[in-house]
């Protein structure tokens, strides 16, 4: 028991370090990527290729005064950024990076990750509500309606995967996909199951993980042209920093989950050089796509966002669930 506890504590420390490092350097990657798409060089002054920019930004954020506005609900105001960051880090503990590298593998791993992911919406609600700022409240209402709307197709798609692999254990899901890329869940010719809609399910899951992380084109929660900065309008210093780190940690979680459920986790496509780097390669490719999408599309409207979920993604994911159930019964 004590060994398990120690294991988890060490895993949490590593997860915090991993999340912080990712948050810092994904900001750099995001800024460089955005700049390249807009044909600018991006941050390139501090260090080679601007690589010292993230630590310097971190120092700047930490050196700033933590300002709490007069009328806010102080406890909730201070809890909210922590609540945005903590579930994201905790989710890392159960995500298997390879067959050996996992903080604490659980039989209900997928359920745990989704449970923590839905707590992110709670953090946004608390932040918006406690700020006592009308724009923050509007933004948090948007963020919550968005989180609810996009959790449903995401969970239905996850159930489809659980039905195919027959386990809620993340490691088990990856193991069910080993043996060449044609065994991955994204491809329709999985052994004994010829579901032609798996690519569509992958797209649905990917779109939902974009929406869950509140990123463009679904960043209505922090639509700066309408709502100042949304739920983190009143936050400065490291409070804002924690929201930021939470967002980027959630991006990594979303990409990891997509990789595990659809792209075979750490499984290498041709059986070459198995190891954790295949997993990292896949998640960073997905994250690069996240960044690419963010700097391509303009922000949707709130109606367009909810219509997309309720009228297209939910029926489509339900249809694929039924089809998969039927196929599993037949074959």
């Amino acid at each position, binding site marked *: 028991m004590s060994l398990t506890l120690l294991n988890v504590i060490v895993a949490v420390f590593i997860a915090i370090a991993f999340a912080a490092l990712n948050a810092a350097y994904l900001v750099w990657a995001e800024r460089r*990527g955005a700049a390249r*798409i807009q*044909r600018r*060089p991006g941050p390139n002054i501090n260090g080679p290729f601007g690589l010292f920019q993230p630590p310097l930004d971190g120092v700047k954020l930490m050196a700033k005064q933590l300002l709490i506005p007069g009328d806010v609900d102080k406890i909730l105001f201070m809890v909210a950024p922590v609540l945005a960051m903590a579930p994201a880090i905790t989710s890392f503990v159960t995500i298997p990076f390879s067959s050996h590298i996992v903080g604490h593998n659980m039989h209900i791993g997928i359920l745990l990750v989704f449970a923590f992911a839905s707590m992110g919406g709670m953090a946004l609600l608390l932040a918006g509500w406690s700020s006592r700022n009308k724009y923050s409240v509007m933004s948090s209402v948007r963020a919550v309606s968005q989180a609810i709307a996009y959790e449903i197709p995401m969970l239905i798609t996850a159930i489809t995967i659980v039905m195919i692999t027959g386990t809620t254990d993340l490691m088990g899901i990856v193991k069910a996909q080993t043996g060449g890329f044609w065994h991955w869940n994204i491809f329709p010719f999985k052994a004994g199951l010829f579901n032609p809609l798996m690519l569509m399910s992958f797209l649905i899951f990917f779109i939902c993980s974009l929406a869950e992380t509140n990123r463009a084109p679904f960043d209505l929660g922090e639509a700066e042209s309408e709502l100042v900065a949304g739920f983190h309008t009143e936050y400065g210093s490291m409070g804002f920093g924690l929201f930021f780190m939470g967002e980027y940690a959630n991006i990594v979680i979303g990409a990891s989950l997509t990789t595990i459920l659809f792209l075979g986790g750490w499984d290498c496509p041709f059986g070459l050089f198995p190891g954790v780097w295949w997993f990292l390669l896949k998640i960073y490719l997905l994250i690069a796509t996240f960044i690419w*999408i963010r*700097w*391509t599309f303009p922000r949707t409207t709130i109606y367009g966002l909810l219509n997309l979920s309720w009228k*297209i993604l939910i029926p489509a994911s339900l249809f694929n669930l039924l089809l998969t159930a039927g196929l599993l019964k037949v074959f």
Partner: protein
Amino acid sequence: MGAYFSGIFSGLWSLFVGMGITFREFFSPTVTVQYPYETLKMTARYRGHIELIADEEGKPNCVVCGMCEKACPSSCITLAGEKPEGAKKKVLTGYHLDFTKCSLCGSCVESCNFNAIEFSREYNLASTRKEDFHFDLLQRLKDRNS
């Protein structure tokens, strides 16, 4: 029902088209100028504040006729000149430009019949004090010559 599906597919296709465009842009060369490290050469018709033109000996072309002073709608220009003993023409002893009031209309340059003033290509002008924009153009000419 058909419109529903065709709407989804045309919408999805347009997303991929957009991503294709940004993908191409990603690998195109940058077009911005890194301003403090590299600067653009100002075009011939760029209007900076006025500057005196010198002849071959480095003396100003100006004959202190005062046309620019009269032409200026904002009274930015103040001239001073004197006629030395035995000389034929007046000699410029002071050319003061109050750039805080200048709107770069160019009337002074147009009114000059002696090719004595021109627009400079200077655009790096920033200061927190008004006095920094009161230029002594004669002094600037001497500084350029030395």
